[in-house]
Protein backbone atom coordinates (compact mmCIF):
# COMPACT_ATOMS: atom_id res chain seq x y z
CA UNK A 1 0.00 0.00 0.00
CA UNK A 2 1.59 3.26 -1.09
CA UNK A 3 0.76 6.97 -0.76
CA UNK A 4 -1.44 6.90 -3.84
CA UNK A 5 -3.54 4.14 -2.30
CA UNK A 6 -3.87 6.17 0.89
CA UNK A 7 -5.11 9.08 -1.14
CA UNK A 8 -7.49 6.81 -3.03
CA UNK A 9 -8.81 5.35 0.21
CA UNK A 10 -9.45 8.75 1.69
CA UNK A 11 -10.83 10.21 -1.50
CA UNK A 12 -13.08 7.25 -2.18
CA UNK A 13 -14.48 6.78 1.30
CA UNK A 14 -17.10 9.53 1.21
CA UNK A 15 -19.34 7.27 -0.91
CA UNK A 16 -20.71 5.78 2.30
CA UNK A 17 -21.69 9.24 3.51
CA UNK A 18 -23.37 10.10 0.23
CA UNK A 19 -25.28 6.82 0.26
CA UNK A 20 -26.51 7.45 3.81
CA UNK A 21 -27.51 11.03 3.06
CA UNK A 22 -29.36 10.08 -0.12
CA UNK A 23 -31.29 7.44 1.79
CA UNK A 24 -31.95 9.99 4.55
CA UNK A 25 -33.44 12.43 2.03
CA UNK A 26 -35.60 9.68 0.51
CA UNK A 27 -36.83 8.66 3.97
CA UNK A 28 -37.61 12.29 4.87
CA UNK A 29 -39.59 12.73 1.64
CA UNK A 30 -41.50 9.53 2.32
CA UNK A 31 -42.35 10.71 5.82
CA UNK A 32 -43.32 14.12 4.45
CA UNK A 33 -45.79 12.52 2.01
CA UNK A 34 -47.34 10.52 4.86
CA UNK A 35 -47.43 13.69 6.95
CA UNK A 36 -49.13 15.69 4.20
CA UNK A 37 -51.65 12.91 3.61
CA UNK A 38 -52.39 12.74 7.32
CA UNK A 39 -52.93 16.51 7.49
CA UNK A 40 -55.29 16.38 4.50
CA UNK A 41 -57.19 13.55 6.16
CA UNK A 42 -57.40 15.50 9.42
CA UNK A 43 -58.75 18.52 7.56
CA UNK A 44 -61.58 16.50 6.05
CA UNK A 45 -62.31 14.60 9.27
CA UNK A 46 -62.41 17.48 11.74
CA UNK A 47 -64.09 20.85 11.81
CA UNK A 48 -61.10 22.51 13.50
CA UNK A 49 -58.09 22.33 11.19
CA UNK A 50 -54.92 20.90 12.72
CA UNK A 51 -52.24 23.35 13.94
CA UNK A 52 -54.71 26.21 14.01
CA UNK A 53 -54.40 26.51 17.78
CA UNK A 54 -50.61 26.33 17.95
CA UNK A 55 -48.19 29.24 17.96
CA UNK A 56 -46.39 27.94 14.86
CA UNK A 57 -47.21 28.52 11.20
CA UNK A 58 -50.45 27.20 9.72
CA UNK A 59 -50.64 23.77 8.04
CA UNK A 60 -50.38 25.12 4.49
CA UNK A 61 -47.45 27.38 5.37
CA UNK A 62 -45.68 24.50 7.11
CA UNK A 63 -46.06 22.29 4.08
CA UNK A 64 -44.80 24.98 1.75
CA UNK A 65 -41.82 25.52 4.03
CA UNK A 66 -41.18 21.78 4.21
CA UNK A 67 -41.26 21.38 0.45
CA UNK A 68 -38.72 24.18 0.07
CA UNK A 69 -36.49 22.72 2.77
CA UNK A 70 -36.56 19.21 1.33
CA UNK A 71 -35.85 20.47 -2.18
CA UNK A 72 -32.86 22.45 -0.95
CA UNK A 73 -31.79 19.37 1.01
CA UNK A 74 -31.75 17.35 -2.22
CA UNK A 75 -29.51 19.96 -3.79
CA UNK A 76 -27.20 20.09 -0.77
CA UNK A 77 -26.75 16.32 -0.68
CA UNK A 78 -25.86 16.27 -4.36
CA UNK A 79 -23.51 19.23 -3.93
CA UNK A 80 -21.81 17.46 -1.03
CA UNK A 81 -21.45 14.30 -3.12
CA UNK A 82 -19.95 16.32 -5.96
CA UNK A 83 -17.52 18.70 -4.29
CA UNK A 84 -17.09 16.98 -0.90
CA UNK A 85 -17.21 20.29 0.90
CA UNK A 86 -18.32 20.92 4.44
CA UNK A 87 -22.00 21.61 3.86
CA UNK A 88 -23.09 22.13 7.45
CA UNK A 89 -26.35 23.50 6.03
CA UNK A 90 -27.18 19.96 4.88
CA UNK A 91 -27.53 18.87 8.49
CA UNK A 92 -29.23 22.07 9.61
CA UNK A 93 -31.83 21.99 6.85
CA UNK A 94 -32.68 18.35 7.50
CA UNK A 95 -32.92 19.09 11.24
CA UNK A 96 -35.30 22.02 10.68
CA UNK A 97 -37.45 19.87 8.39
CA UNK A 98 -37.61 17.13 11.02
CA UNK A 99 -38.58 19.62 13.72
CA UNK A 100 -41.33 21.01 11.49
CA UNK A 101 -42.72 17.49 11.22
CA UNK A 102 -42.63 17.15 15.03
CA UNK A 103 -39.79 14.65 14.91
CA UNK A 104 -37.43 13.68 17.69
CA UNK A 105 -33.93 15.08 17.17
CA UNK A 106 -30.68 13.39 18.04
CA UNK A 107 -27.07 14.34 17.40
CA UNK A 108 -24.08 12.05 17.79
CA UNK A 109 -20.42 11.64 17.05
CA UNK A 110 -17.83 9.22 18.43
CA UNK A 111 -18.07 10.35 22.05
CA UNK A 112 -20.84 13.00 21.92
CA UNK A 113 -18.82 15.67 23.67
CA UNK A 114 -16.88 17.79 21.14
CA UNK A 115 -18.29 17.63 17.62
CA UNK A 116 -21.79 16.98 18.94
CA UNK A 117 -21.53 19.98 21.25
CA UNK A 118 -20.45 22.44 18.59
CA UNK A 119 -23.10 21.25 16.16
CA UNK A 120 -25.94 21.17 18.67
CA UNK A 121 -25.18 24.70 19.87
CA UNK A 122 -25.14 25.89 16.25
CA UNK A 123 -28.51 24.25 15.63
CA UNK A 124 -30.01 25.93 18.70
CA UNK A 125 -28.63 29.36 17.71
CA UNK A 126 -29.89 29.04 14.13
CA UNK A 127 -33.28 27.83 15.33
CA UNK A 128 -33.50 30.79 17.70
CA UNK A 129 -32.76 33.05 14.71
CA UNK A 130 -35.33 31.34 12.47
CA UNK A 131 -38.02 31.60 15.14
CA UNK A 132 -37.27 35.26 15.75
CA UNK A 133 -35.67 34.99 19.17
CA UNK A 134 -32.18 35.98 18.10
CA UNK A 135 -30.81 38.59 15.74
CA UNK A 136 -28.38 37.15 13.17
CA UNK A 137 -25.75 39.75 14.14
CA UNK A 138 -25.67 38.32 17.67
CA UNK A 139 -25.37 34.68 16.59
CA UNK A 140 -21.64 34.39 17.27
CA UNK A 141 -22.10 35.90 20.72
CA UNK A 142 -24.82 33.36 21.45
CA UNK A 143 -22.66 30.50 20.13
CA UNK A 144 -19.71 31.55 22.30
CA UNK A 145 -21.96 31.70 25.34
CA UNK A 146 -23.46 28.27 24.70
CA UNK A 147 -20.04 26.71 24.04
CA UNK A 148 -18.23 28.60 26.76
CA UNK A 149 -17.90 27.93 30.50
CA UNK A 150 -21.41 29.20 31.18
CA UNK A 151 -22.93 26.59 28.84
CA UNK A 152 -23.59 22.95 29.67
CA UNK A 153 -21.66 21.39 26.80
CA UNK A 154 -18.25 22.30 28.15
CA UNK A 155 -19.32 20.85 31.49
CA UNK A 156 -20.23 17.66 29.63
CA UNK A 157 -16.70 17.53 28.21
CA UNK A 158 -15.32 18.01 31.70
CA UNK A 159 -17.45 15.18 33.11
CA UNK A 160 -16.10 12.87 30.39
CA UNK A 161 -12.44 13.87 30.28
CA UNK A 162 -11.79 15.75 33.51
CA UNK A 163 -10.75 18.86 31.56
CA UNK A 164 -12.80 21.97 30.95
CA UNK A 165 -11.74 21.89 27.28
CA UNK A 166 -13.00 20.57 23.96
CA UNK A 167 -10.62 18.06 22.44
CA UNK A 168 -9.77 19.86 19.20
CA UNK A 169 -6.13 20.27 18.24
CA UNK A 170 -5.03 23.42 16.32
CA UNK A 171 -5.09 21.65 12.94
CA UNK A 172 -8.61 20.35 13.50
CA UNK A 173 -9.72 23.80 14.65
CA UNK A 174 -8.43 25.40 11.47
CA UNK A 175 -10.10 22.78 9.32
CA UNK A 176 -13.47 23.22 11.05
CA UNK A 177 -16.01 25.51 9.41
CA UNK A 178 -16.00 28.86 11.22
CA UNK A 179 -19.52 28.41 12.58
CA UNK A 180 -18.44 25.23 14.33
CA UNK A 181 -15.33 26.58 16.03
CA UNK A 182 -15.57 26.85 19.80
CA UNK A 183 -14.20 29.98 21.54
CA UNK A 184 -10.38 29.92 21.53
CA UNK A 185 -9.65 29.34 25.24
CA UNK A 186 -12.01 26.36 25.42
CA UNK A 187 -10.40 24.36 22.62
CA UNK A 188 -6.92 23.31 23.44
CA UNK A 189 -6.62 19.67 24.12
CA UNK A 190 -6.10 16.37 22.33
CA UNK A 191 -7.75 15.23 19.14
CA UNK A 192 -11.46 14.77 18.63
Amino acid at each position, binding site marked *: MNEAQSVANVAGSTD*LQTEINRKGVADLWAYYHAFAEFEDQSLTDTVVPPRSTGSGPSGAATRRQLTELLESLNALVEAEAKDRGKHVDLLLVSSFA*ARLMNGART*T*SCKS*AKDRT*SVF*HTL*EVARLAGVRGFLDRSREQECLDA*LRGPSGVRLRNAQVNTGKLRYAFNP*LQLQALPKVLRPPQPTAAGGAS
Partner: protein
Amino acid sequence: MFKEVIKSWLAGIFDLLIHFFDALLPGTNLNIHRTSLNKVTTVAATTFGAPSAHSLGFAHGGLRQTWRKLDEVVRACSAPGTSGKDPLTRLNQLELRFHARARECLVMSQALGAAVTAAAEVLVTCITEKRLDTLRQMYNIGLLLHSVCLLSTAGKEAAMIDDFAGAYAGLKLSLCLAPVDDDSLRGSSVEQQRVTLDVAEITSNEPASQTTAFEFAGSPGGEGGGGRGCAMGAVKVVLRISPRLAHDWIVSTLGKPVPEVHVVPVLFNLGKHACALLYLLRCLCFQLFIHFCLSRFAVPKA
Protein backbone atom coordinates in the same frame (compact mmCIF):
# COMPACT_ATOMS: atom_id res chain seq x y z
CA MET B 1 1.22 -25.48 26.08
CA PHE B 2 -0.30 -24.97 29.53
CA LYS B 3 0.59 -21.27 29.37
CA GLU B 4 -1.13 -20.93 25.99
CA VAL B 5 -4.34 -22.50 27.28
CA ILE B 6 -4.40 -20.22 30.34
CA LYS B 7 -3.68 -17.22 28.12
CA SER B 8 -6.55 -18.02 25.75
CA TRP B 9 -8.91 -18.62 28.70
CA LEU B 10 -8.00 -15.29 30.24
CA ALA B 11 -8.48 -13.55 26.88
CA GLY B 12 -11.90 -15.21 26.58
CA ILE B 13 -12.95 -14.10 30.06
CA PHE B 14 -11.71 -10.58 29.35
CA ASP B 15 -13.74 -10.46 26.09
CA LEU B 16 -16.80 -11.75 27.91
CA LEU B 17 -16.46 -9.04 30.57
CA ILE B 18 -16.11 -6.33 27.93
CA HIS B 19 -19.23 -7.58 26.10
CA PHE B 20 -21.12 -7.82 29.38
CA PHE B 21 -20.35 -4.22 30.32
CA ASP B 22 -21.01 -3.04 26.77
CA ALA B 23 -24.47 -4.58 26.91
CA LEU B 24 -25.04 -3.29 30.42
CA LEU B 25 -24.27 0.31 29.54
CA PRO B 26 -26.17 0.87 26.31
CA GLY B 27 -25.98 4.60 25.79
CA THR B 28 -22.59 6.29 25.75
CA ASN B 29 -22.73 9.84 27.10
CA LEU B 30 -26.49 9.87 26.52
CA ASN B 31 -28.02 13.23 27.43
CA ILE B 32 -31.08 15.26 26.67
CA HIS B 33 -30.10 18.86 26.00
CA ARG B 34 -32.99 21.28 26.52
CA THR B 35 -32.55 24.95 25.67
CA SER B 36 -35.24 27.43 26.59
CA LEU B 37 -35.76 30.24 24.05
CA ASN B 38 -36.91 33.32 25.97
CA LYS B 39 -38.94 30.99 28.22
CA VAL B 40 -41.46 30.73 25.36
CA THR B 41 -40.42 27.47 23.79
CA THR B 42 -37.88 24.75 24.46
CA VAL B 43 -35.55 23.21 21.92
CA ALA B 44 -34.58 19.66 22.88
CA ALA B 45 -32.19 17.20 21.35
CA THR B 46 -30.80 13.89 22.54
CA THR B 47 -27.03 13.63 22.24
CA PHE B 48 -25.17 10.33 22.46
CA GLY B 49 -22.03 8.56 21.31
CA ALA B 50 -22.73 6.79 18.02
CA PRO B 51 -23.84 3.17 18.55
CA SER B 52 -20.88 1.04 17.64
CA ALA B 53 -19.26 -2.24 18.67
CA HIS B 54 -15.92 -0.85 19.84
CA SER B 55 -15.12 -3.96 21.86
CA LEU B 56 -15.32 -6.20 18.77
CA GLY B 57 -13.02 -4.02 16.71
CA PHE B 58 -13.50 -3.17 13.06
CA ALA B 59 -11.59 -5.90 11.24
CA HIS B 60 -14.80 -6.96 9.41
CA GLY B 61 -15.94 -3.33 9.00
CA GLY B 62 -19.25 -2.19 10.43
CA LEU B 63 -22.54 -3.98 10.96
CA ARG B 64 -23.81 -3.69 7.40
CA GLN B 65 -20.49 -4.88 5.99
CA THR B 66 -20.62 -7.87 8.35
CA TRP B 67 -24.18 -8.66 7.19
CA ARG B 68 -23.05 -8.43 3.58
CA LYS B 69 -20.09 -10.76 4.21
CA LEU B 70 -22.37 -13.23 5.98
CA ASP B 71 -24.87 -13.16 3.13
CA GLU B 72 -22.08 -13.76 0.63
CA VAL B 73 -20.71 -16.71 2.60
CA VAL B 74 -24.17 -18.24 3.04
CA ARG B 75 -24.92 -17.79 -0.65
CA ALA B 76 -21.58 -19.28 -1.64
CA CYS B 77 -22.12 -22.29 0.63
CA SER B 78 -25.63 -22.97 -0.60
CA ALA B 79 -24.72 -22.67 -4.29
CA PRO B 80 -25.02 -25.98 -6.20
CA GLY B 81 -21.78 -27.81 -6.74
CA THR B 82 -19.97 -26.18 -3.83
CA SER B 83 -18.54 -27.85 -0.77
CA GLY B 84 -21.22 -26.49 1.58
CA LYS B 85 -20.93 -29.55 3.78
CA ASP B 86 -17.21 -29.07 4.26
CA PRO B 87 -16.64 -28.75 8.05
CA LEU B 88 -14.12 -25.93 7.65
CA THR B 89 -16.50 -23.90 5.46
CA ARG B 90 -19.33 -24.51 7.90
CA LEU B 91 -17.12 -23.48 10.79
CA ASN B 92 -16.18 -20.24 9.01
CA GLN B 93 -19.83 -19.53 8.35
CA LEU B 94 -20.73 -20.22 11.97
CA GLU B 95 -17.93 -17.96 13.18
CA LEU B 96 -19.08 -15.11 10.95
CA ARG B 97 -22.69 -15.63 12.00
CA PHE B 98 -21.67 -15.49 15.66
CA HIS B 99 -19.65 -12.32 15.00
CA ALA B 100 -22.61 -10.70 13.19
CA ARG B 101 -25.01 -11.56 16.02
CA ALA B 102 -22.61 -10.29 18.69
CA ARG B 103 -22.16 -7.05 16.74
CA GLU B 104 -25.92 -6.68 16.33
CA CYS B 105 -26.48 -7.12 20.06
CA LEU B 106 -23.93 -4.45 20.97
CA VAL B 107 -24.95 -1.92 18.34
CA MET B 108 -28.70 -2.39 18.55
CA SER B 109 -28.81 -2.15 22.34
CA GLN B 110 -27.05 1.23 22.21
CA ALA B 111 -29.30 2.48 19.40
CA LEU B 112 -32.39 1.26 21.22
CA GLY B 113 -31.53 3.18 24.39
CA ALA B 114 -30.99 6.41 22.47
CA ALA B 115 -34.09 5.98 20.29
CA VAL B 116 -36.38 5.33 23.26
CA THR B 117 -34.95 8.33 25.14
CA ALA B 118 -35.43 10.69 22.19
CA ALA B 119 -38.93 9.42 21.40
CA ALA B 120 -40.02 9.57 25.05
CA GLU B 121 -38.84 13.18 25.25
CA VAL B 122 -41.12 14.17 22.35
CA LEU B 123 -44.04 12.19 23.79
CA VAL B 124 -43.69 13.83 27.20
CA THR B 125 -43.61 17.30 25.59
CA CYS B 126 -46.73 16.53 23.54
CA ILE B 127 -48.64 15.22 26.53
CA THR B 128 -47.55 18.07 28.82
CA GLU B 129 -48.44 20.73 26.25
CA LYS B 130 -51.59 18.82 25.23
CA ARG B 131 -50.64 18.87 21.55
CA LEU B 132 -53.44 16.71 20.28
CA ASP B 133 -52.75 16.97 16.56
CA THR B 134 -49.11 15.95 17.07
CA LEU B 135 -50.14 12.94 19.14
CA ARG B 136 -52.65 11.91 16.49
CA GLN B 137 -49.93 12.28 13.87
CA MET B 138 -47.59 10.00 15.81
CA TYR B 139 -50.19 7.29 16.31
CA ASN B 140 -51.15 7.39 12.64
CA ILE B 141 -47.91 7.74 10.68
CA GLY B 142 -45.25 7.09 13.31
CA LEU B 143 -42.75 9.25 15.14
CA LEU B 144 -39.88 10.58 13.04
CA LEU B 145 -36.50 9.99 14.69
CA HIS B 146 -34.08 12.31 12.96
CA SER B 147 -30.41 11.66 13.68
CA VAL B 148 -27.38 13.69 12.74
CA CYS B 149 -24.09 11.80 12.82
CA LEU B 150 -20.79 13.67 12.74
CA LEU B 151 -18.40 10.79 12.22
CA SER B 152 -15.58 11.07 9.75
CA THR B 153 -15.48 8.86 6.68
CA ALA B 154 -11.86 7.87 7.27
CA GLY B 155 -10.29 5.03 9.24
CA LYS B 156 -12.26 3.29 12.00
CA GLU B 157 -14.92 5.97 12.05
CA ALA B 158 -16.14 4.82 8.63
CA ALA B 159 -16.92 1.43 10.19
CA MET B 160 -18.65 3.22 13.07
CA ILE B 161 -20.91 5.01 10.57
CA ASP B 162 -21.64 1.60 9.06
CA ASP B 163 -22.57 0.31 12.53
CA PHE B 164 -24.89 3.29 13.05
CA ALA B 165 -26.54 2.89 9.65
CA GLY B 166 -26.93 -0.85 10.28
CA ALA B 167 -28.54 -0.20 13.65
CA TYR B 168 -31.12 2.11 12.09
CA ALA B 169 -31.74 -0.29 9.21
CA GLY B 170 -32.56 -3.06 11.66
CA LEU B 171 -34.41 -0.96 14.23
CA LYS B 172 -38.11 -1.83 14.24
CA LEU B 173 -39.27 -0.05 17.35
CA SER B 174 -42.71 0.71 18.68
CA LEU B 175 -43.62 2.40 21.94
CA CYS B 176 -46.66 1.62 23.99
CA LEU B 177 -48.00 3.66 26.89
CA ALA B 178 -49.37 1.97 29.99
CA PRO B 179 -50.87 3.66 33.06
CA VAL B 180 -48.85 3.83 36.24
CA ASP B 181 -49.86 1.24 38.86
CA ASP B 182 -49.91 3.67 41.77
CA ASP B 183 -53.29 5.30 41.78
CA SER B 184 -52.67 7.58 44.77
CA LEU B 185 -52.22 10.62 42.54
CA ARG B 186 -55.69 10.27 41.01
CA GLY B 187 -57.81 13.33 41.62
CA SER B 188 -55.34 16.10 40.80
CA SER B 189 -55.27 17.57 37.32
CA VAL B 190 -52.65 16.75 34.69
CA GLU B 191 -51.40 20.34 34.75
CA GLN B 192 -50.46 20.06 38.43
CA GLN B 193 -48.20 17.07 37.95
CA ARG B 194 -45.07 16.55 35.92
CA VAL B 195 -45.56 13.93 33.23
CA THR B 196 -42.92 11.20 33.35
CA LEU B 197 -42.31 8.04 31.37
CA ASP B 198 -40.47 5.01 32.70
CA VAL B 199 -39.56 1.84 30.84
CA ALA B 200 -41.75 -0.96 32.16
CA GLU B 201 -41.19 -3.77 29.70
CA ILE B 202 -39.21 -4.55 26.56
CA THR B 203 -40.30 -7.38 24.29
CA SER B 204 -38.97 -8.59 20.98
CA ASN B 205 -40.83 -10.79 18.52
CA GLU B 206 -39.59 -13.05 15.74
CA PRO B 207 -37.01 -11.57 13.33
CA ALA B 208 -37.91 -10.00 10.01
CA SER B 209 -41.43 -8.94 10.98
CA GLN B 210 -42.61 -5.61 9.68
CA THR B 211 -43.92 -3.11 12.21
CA THR B 212 -43.23 0.25 10.62
CA ALA B 213 -46.24 2.46 10.11
CA PHE B 214 -45.51 2.67 6.41
CA GLU B 215 -42.89 1.36 4.03
CA PHE B 216 -40.37 4.15 3.94
CA ALA B 217 -38.20 4.68 0.91
CA GLY B 218 -35.00 2.70 0.63
CA SER B 219 -36.32 0.09 3.02
CA PRO B 220 -33.54 -2.48 3.20
CA GLY B 221 -34.23 -5.65 1.30
CA GLY B 222 -31.40 -7.77 2.58
CA GLU B 223 -29.99 -5.69 5.40
CA GLY B 224 -31.52 -5.93 8.80
CA GLY B 225 -35.17 -5.55 8.03
CA GLY B 226 -35.76 -7.60 4.93
CA GLY B 227 -35.14 -11.16 3.88
CA ARG B 228 -32.67 -12.38 6.45
CA GLY B 229 -33.71 -10.13 9.28
CA CYS B 230 -31.93 -8.65 12.24
CA ALA B 231 -31.68 -10.92 15.27
CA MET B 232 -33.44 -8.39 17.46
CA GLY B 233 -36.59 -8.36 15.31
CA ALA B 234 -39.36 -5.94 16.14
CA VAL B 235 -39.07 -4.44 19.59
CA LYS B 236 -41.97 -3.17 21.62
CA VAL B 237 -41.15 -0.96 24.59
CA VAL B 238 -43.87 -0.38 27.17
CA LEU B 239 -43.51 2.99 28.88
CA ARG B 240 -45.33 3.50 32.14
CA ILE B 241 -46.82 6.97 32.15
CA SER B 242 -47.37 8.96 35.31
CA PRO B 243 -49.73 10.49 36.37
CA ARG B 244 -52.50 8.05 35.51
CA LEU B 245 -54.73 10.93 34.45
CA ALA B 246 -52.38 11.67 31.56
CA HIS B 247 -52.88 8.14 30.23
CA ASP B 248 -56.64 8.40 30.67
CA TRP B 249 -56.58 11.68 28.77
CA ILE B 250 -54.68 10.10 25.84
CA VAL B 251 -57.01 7.12 25.67
CA SER B 252 -60.15 9.27 25.85
CA THR B 253 -58.78 11.69 23.25
CA LEU B 254 -57.43 9.21 20.76
CA GLY B 255 -60.09 6.59 21.40
CA LYS B 256 -57.63 3.73 21.39
CA PRO B 257 -57.30 1.28 24.29
CA VAL B 258 -53.56 0.67 23.89
CA PRO B 259 -51.90 3.53 22.02
CA GLU B 260 -48.79 2.46 20.14
CA VAL B 261 -46.27 4.69 18.37
CA HIS B 262 -43.98 3.36 15.66
CA VAL B 263 -40.57 4.97 15.39
CA VAL B 264 -39.31 5.91 11.91
CA PRO B 265 -35.53 6.45 12.04
CA VAL B 266 -33.78 8.72 9.53
CA LEU B 267 -30.01 9.20 9.49
CA PHE B 268 -27.77 11.90 8.04
CA ASN B 269 -24.00 12.04 8.22
CA LEU B 270 -21.43 14.74 7.64
CA GLY B 271 -17.89 13.81 8.53
CA LYS B 272 -15.51 16.49 9.45
CA HIS B 273 -13.13 16.29 6.56
CA ALA B 274 -10.43 17.53 8.88
CA CYS B 275 -10.37 14.01 10.25
CA ALA B 276 -9.95 12.59 6.77
CA LEU B 277 -7.12 15.05 6.21
CA LEU B 278 -5.50 14.06 9.48
CA TYR B 279 -5.84 10.40 8.56
CA LEU B 280 -4.19 11.05 5.22
CA LEU B 281 -1.39 13.03 6.85
CA ARG B 282 -0.87 10.25 9.37
CA CYS B 283 -0.64 7.64 6.60
CA LEU B 284 1.82 9.75 4.65
CA CYS B 285 3.95 10.52 7.72
CA PHE B 286 4.03 6.84 8.67
CA GLN B 287 5.08 5.78 5.18
CA LEU B 288 7.72 8.50 4.98
CA PHE B 289 9.03 7.33 8.35
CA ILE B 290 9.22 3.73 7.09
CA HIS B 291 11.02 4.87 3.91
CA PHE B 292 13.44 6.88 6.02
CA CYS B 293 14.12 3.97 8.37
CA LEU B 294 14.64 1.55 5.49
CA SER B 295 17.00 3.88 3.67
CA ARG B 296 18.90 4.75 6.86
CA PHE B 297 19.19 1.40 8.59
CA ALA B 298 18.72 -1.23 5.90
CA VAL B 299 21.70 -3.49 5.44
CA PRO B 300 23.14 -2.87 1.96
CA LYS B 301 23.20 -5.85 -0.34
CA ALA B 302 26.56 -7.29 -1.04
